[in-house]
């Protein structure tokens, strides 16, 4: 299935981090939609990204494919998040928008430097028009990492890209998601949406939680939306184990 080439079957094990993912497919007959990846780059760092392409069907699938391979190549050339997204923006703009066929994606791209026993784990994110990442802290707080001002990737030749940095302490987990989650309908009207405020409250109820727990809980939340969940939804969580002796390999929860 082509969809299989658009997201990895499972994530690689990252030393010093726990990871978990989930991909919900709204319409199995339609390809495309959301994407994510996680891979090593130079300097004991790991790059990860998650995003959402516009449109549906084969056009969206080809855009997803171009996006994934461009980001992978860009990250090996310069893993700085803003640089990787700037490269993607230039590629998508040249390939589509400049020719009168605008296609674009929202994307959050991150670099994580696992600290292990030697220091803090630092995450740097860049966002192009993507919903803010959520961090569940070990002390029970849940907070967004706002990246205001970032623009849909591929719209303008030189796009503003918003960046943010945070430190993950032992027991902290960062969650990336696509807007299928926050735009899920929770009422009869087209404007009755789940929303970011409800997600933060949900995260506060979970925190502290390891990535596997967070993804399991969010998967249950997605299921609870029923027919209100009408878009593909990707979830990716990275966390520093509260007890480093308990590091588990990546888990992938099929839809």
């Amino acid at each position, binding site marked *: 299935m082509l969809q299989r080439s658009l997201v990895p079957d499972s994530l690689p094990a990252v030393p010093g981090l726990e990871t978990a993912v989930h991909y919900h497919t709204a319409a199995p007959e339609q390809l495309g939609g959301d994407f994510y990846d996680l891979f090593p780059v130079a300097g004991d760092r790991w790059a990860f990204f998650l995003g959402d392409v516009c*449109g549906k069907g084969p056009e969206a699938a080809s855009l997803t494919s171009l996006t994934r391979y461009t980001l992978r190549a860009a990250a090996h050339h310069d893993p700085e998040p803003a640089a990787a997204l700037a490269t993607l923006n230039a590629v998508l703009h040249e390939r589509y928008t400049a020719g009168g066929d*605008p296609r674009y994606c929202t994307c959050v791209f991150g670099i994580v430097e696992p600290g292990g026993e030697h220091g803090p784990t630092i995450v740097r994110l860049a966002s192009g*028009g993507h919903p803010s990442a959520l961090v569940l802290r070990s002390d029970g707080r849940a907070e967004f990492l706002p990246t205001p*001002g970032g*623009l849909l990737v591929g719209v303008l030749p030189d796009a503003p890209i918003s960046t943010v940095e945070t430190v993950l302490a032992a027991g902290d987990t960062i969650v990336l998601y696509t807007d299928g989650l926050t735009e899920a309908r929770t009422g009869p009207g*087209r404007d009755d949406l789940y929303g970011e405020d409800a997600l933060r409250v949900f995260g506060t109820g979970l925190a502290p939680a390891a990535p596997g727990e967070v993804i399991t809980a969010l998967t249950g939340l997605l299921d609870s939306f029923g027919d209100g969940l009408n878009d593909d939804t990707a979830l990716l969580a990275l966390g520093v184990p509260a007890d480093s002796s308990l590091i588990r390999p990546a888990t992938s929860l099929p839809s």
Partner: protein
Amino acid sequence: MKTLTISHRDTATGPVLHVAGEMDYDQAPELRRQVDRLSLTPGQCLVLDLSGLEFCDSTGITALLAARQHALAAGAGIVLAGVPANLLRVLTLVGLDQVFTLRPDTSPAS
């Protein structure tokens, strides 16, 4: 589903398209067709009056961006007028409030 209806009038400063109904994957191509038929001249301003738009998904937003590209290629400008609150929220979320000129009212460009 409500049908997308687009009405066209010409003003001294350029065409105004009044876009009403629901603009989704099935119906967004109609806006692209109508915009592609417009012959804009340099210095004109295309106004998309969205005050009657009840729903707009990502393919609808793509059609708005295609309209922008069409206007810019002709040396014309583009204004989104009367953007409904929910669409404004989405446009702001993805940064497009920086790309489009937005006007609360729906009078022709001045």
